[in-house]
Every structure is written in C-alpha cells, then in structure tokens.
C-alpha cells in the first residue's frame, strides 16, 4: 500500500536521525520520484540543517537584528545575586 505524503515526510525527517530500513528507503525513493512536494520537503529540511550549521550568527540576534545582549535589568539583577552570594560566603 502506498504511504501518504505525511508518512513519507515523517520518514524523511527520521532519515536525518537514523538509517531507515532498506524497505523504507525504497518506499521513500519511489515516492520522491513521483512527488515534487515531498521532494521539496526533503530538500528544505536538509537545506535547513545546512543553513543553521553555517549561520549561527544570524540566530543570535534579537528582534531588532542586533546581537542579543543581557538587558540592563537582568544584568543588575544577576550582579546583585552574585554579589550577595559572594558576601554570604
């Protein structure tokens, strides 16, 4: 029985975590040869992994596109907590 696109997509995602069985790989291969949607999904999830692993800088930005930093409040709070802990021994 043919698998649905949802099932194939799940297998595609799993294939990035562990090796699929031979049967599963054949099913995926046949499906991809006929289904542009799943082929697109396969390309995108691999591309996502590649992009993320090459572009960590772009992920460390805040909403305004600046490098994320501790807010003044958080900084003061953490410093105060540390100071008290240091004094308290």
């Amino acid at each position, binding site marked *: 029985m043919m698998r649905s696109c*949802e099932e194939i997509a799940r297998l595609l995602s799993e294939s990035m975590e562990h090796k699929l069985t031979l049967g599963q790989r054949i099913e995926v291969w046949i499906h991809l040869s006929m289904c542009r949607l*799943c082929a697109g999904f396969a390309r*995108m999830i691999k591309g996502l992994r590649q*992009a993320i692993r090459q572009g960590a800088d772009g992920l460390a930005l805040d*909403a305004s596109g600046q490098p994320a930093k501790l807010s003044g409040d958080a900084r003061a709070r953490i410093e105060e907590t540390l100071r008290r802990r240091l004094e308290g021994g």
Partner: protein
Amino acid sequence: MAADDHADRPVIDPAAWVDRHGDRLYRYAVTRLRSPEAAEEVVQETFLAALQSAHQYAGTGAEGAWLMGICKRKVVDCVRRWQRPDAASDSPPPADPADAIIDGGSNWRNDRKLADAQPSANVERAEFWAAFRRCLDRLPKRQAAVFMLRELDKIESDTICKDLNISSSNLWVLLHRARAGLTRCLKGFFDPLEMPQ
C-alpha cells in the same frame, strides 16, 4: 581535582563575570531557548553553579570556556524542566495537524511554493534569518529548543534522548514537527539549499 595544594591556582574573578561573560552566555542560551527570561535565568544559574564549583576549576582552560561548559548543561536542564508540565504529550500521537508539511488538507498537493522552492540568491541573508527567527518563535518552545540542540549544536540523537530522558521516537516526532512547522512557515520565502553564505 584536589588542587588545593597548588600555590599557583588559577584566579577566577566572579565580580567581573557578568561584564566579561554575561552577554556571551546569554546569547548562547537565548539562541536555543528563544525566551529572554529563560536565558537570563540560565545565565544566573550558570554563575551560581560556577561559584559553588569554583574549587573544581582546574584552570586548564580559560574561565570563559569553563563557564560556557556549565551554561550548556544549564540550557539542557532548562529544556528538561519544560517537558514536565506537558509530559502527557510526550507519547507520540499517531497524527497531528502539526505533522502536515503543508497547511490545510485539500489543496496541499497543489502547493507549488514548497515543491518549487525558489532559488534564493537574491534573498538577503539578514532577511532570511529574521524570518527564520520569527518562524522558530512560533513553534512550541520545547520543540524549538530540541530542534536547535540537534541542528545547531549537532548533539547526537542518542545524547539528546538521554539528557532529556525521552525515547527516540518521541525525539523524532518533536524534530519532525519542528521541521514541518519551519518549512511551512518559510515556504516560498527561499530555498535554504541555495542560501547565500
């Protein structure tokens, strides 16, 4: 590490930690946890844990690297805490709308945007990452964090399962949902394969 007898023990300087290392640790944590509050908490926990184990600091590496090592563990601890409240959802349900790689049921076969993922040579790098961060923030927070630990930090599936105390099939479901959600959210925006470096 009974190094107390070493006269030349490395000096650590907790009073300067926030200034010297605060932003870097925060950036690491917030990139993965997506929540400023959770990331601030992790930074504080990191410093407090470091104070407690300061005597163990062997000084073999830089102070910053030592703190970062503690911070990484605290990030994982934070993600592990997140799964407590919704632990029931940990058993993978057979189907979920979130598993669909395309929104809606009837017309997804006609969705050209995903099938024809556009080359993105003309898409600005900054624009892509801004969209990516927005899409990531729309995912359930645990899903997003697990996805980042796996994809960004390249932590092996087995290690994540052990650290978070979840089964492999639960991990696969989480990762698949994150991928399906992200590709749905980013579809037509670009083809990440063609992303400018």
